[in-house]
């Protein structure tokens, strides 16, 4: 792996340099041939950073990231969208929930490269200026949190649920939010908020 990096550069320098290279469009399809194996040229990405586009909350962004980077890492570290939280980082807690093409997913277990060409929505995209989204307003109104750390994920899972099922039953709400844990166990108020948001529309 290190053989494919320019000599004499630290990892940090290297990332700086590749940012510039990426800006010049030199990284896409970067060949790592010549080391004697059959590593692919076209179509093979990484392990070095590659440049690609992501559409987040209706805006197109260019990012440079290693293929190992998860969607969560790129949202937080490259785009400074820190609403999605990194908690378990292994698909158990739901704090990183975002919507991809309208479906709730764990951003921590999706490679950022897999989100290319798709519509990504994060909690930052919900409010219109000072006007909160109905789900956000309902969480405040019904006190649907305690410490608040899981809240962006709970809110995004609720948004996905209500877009698919506008008037969910109690069971449908519990099923729709079953992938989001709340360590403060504010579940009843979270479910109340989801029910209220479904009626607010």
């Amino acid at each position, binding site marked *: 792996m290190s053989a494919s990096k320019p000599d004499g550069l630290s990892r940090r320098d290297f990332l700086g340099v590749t940012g510039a290279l990426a800006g010049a469009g030199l990284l896409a399809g970067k060949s790592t041939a010549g080391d004697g194996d059959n*590593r692919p040229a076209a179509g093979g990405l990484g*392990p070095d950073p590659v440049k690609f586009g992501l559409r987040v909350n209706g805006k197109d962004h260019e990012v440079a990231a290693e293929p190992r980077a998860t969607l969560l890492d790129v949202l937080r570290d490259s785009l400074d969208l820190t609403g999605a939280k990194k908690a378990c980082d292994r698909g158990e807690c739901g704090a990183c*929930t975002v919507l991809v093409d309208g479906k709730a*997913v764990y951003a921590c277990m999706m490679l950022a*490269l897999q989100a290319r060409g798709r519509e990504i929505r994060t909690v930052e995209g919900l409010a219109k200026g000072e006007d909160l989204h109905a789900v956000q307003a309902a969480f405040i109104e019904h006190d649907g949190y305690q410490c608040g750390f899981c809240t962006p994920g709970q809110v995004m899972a609720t948004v996905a649920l209500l877009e698919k099922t506008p008037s969910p039953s109690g069971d449908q709400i519990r099923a729709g939010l079953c*992938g989001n844990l709340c360590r403060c166990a504010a579940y009843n108020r979270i479910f109340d908020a989801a029910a209220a948001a479904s009626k607010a529309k």
Partner: protein
Amino acid sequence: MRSAVAGLELLEPRSVNEALRMMRDRGPATPLAGATDLYVHLNSGTLKPRRFVNRWALDELRRIASKRDGLSIGALATFTDCLRSPLVRRRLPMLAAAAREVGGVQIQNRGTLGGNVANASPAGDALPVLAAAEALVVLRSTEGERRVPFSAFYTGYRSTVMRADELIVALEIPPVAGKQWFRKVGTRLAQAISKVVIAAVRDARPRIALGSVGPTVVRVPRTEEALASGASIEQARRILEAEIKPIDDIRSTAAYRRRVAGNLLACFWKETS
């Protein structure tokens, strides 16, 4: 970026055929779709492969279609696809039931049926369903396609008959006659790996498959035989408890699993009578 995941290389096929050529020419490569299992291994540093074929965007493998009176389910059909499919709900309701209990919504939106099969965990939620339904695993390589009966697919703990150049492209399910039944027992309803999982079909020839009670998903032919020839459920239960080989592990104990498997068999028999 702080991440436990070491550098990896991602191959990006634009078609299934290109993916197959990549598996042949650029191997060893690991197919990657929803990554819900792979990512856990990647992140814990236990996964050795560093080259992956990203097949998530190959939508042609996501189709769920009628095949004679059975089903053909594309390997990339997610659990959400399965549980929303009217065809699956009508012809293979036990798969819809299993899909609903995989992880949580977010896992169901990304986890694929083919991935569940390829991951080869003895606890895979959909695997007892495929075993009880006597599914065929459709494997494709650049040399062609072959169909492997589900009962011959696993050769041991997390090992299968798949060659390194093959991809799972579909699961074919013959028509299933008889009442279907599924139950998963875990620590909690969502986001839990099973302690015991069972899928069964009540027919003149009962078919019963269990997960998390051995190194692979298992059918229990002696128990099935006993029930088919009119044994009482108490007798069948004793046979089942001797037939399975559960172990003590972080999720449960062998004794608990044996007891619960017996209870589940009795529930199945009662609820489908």
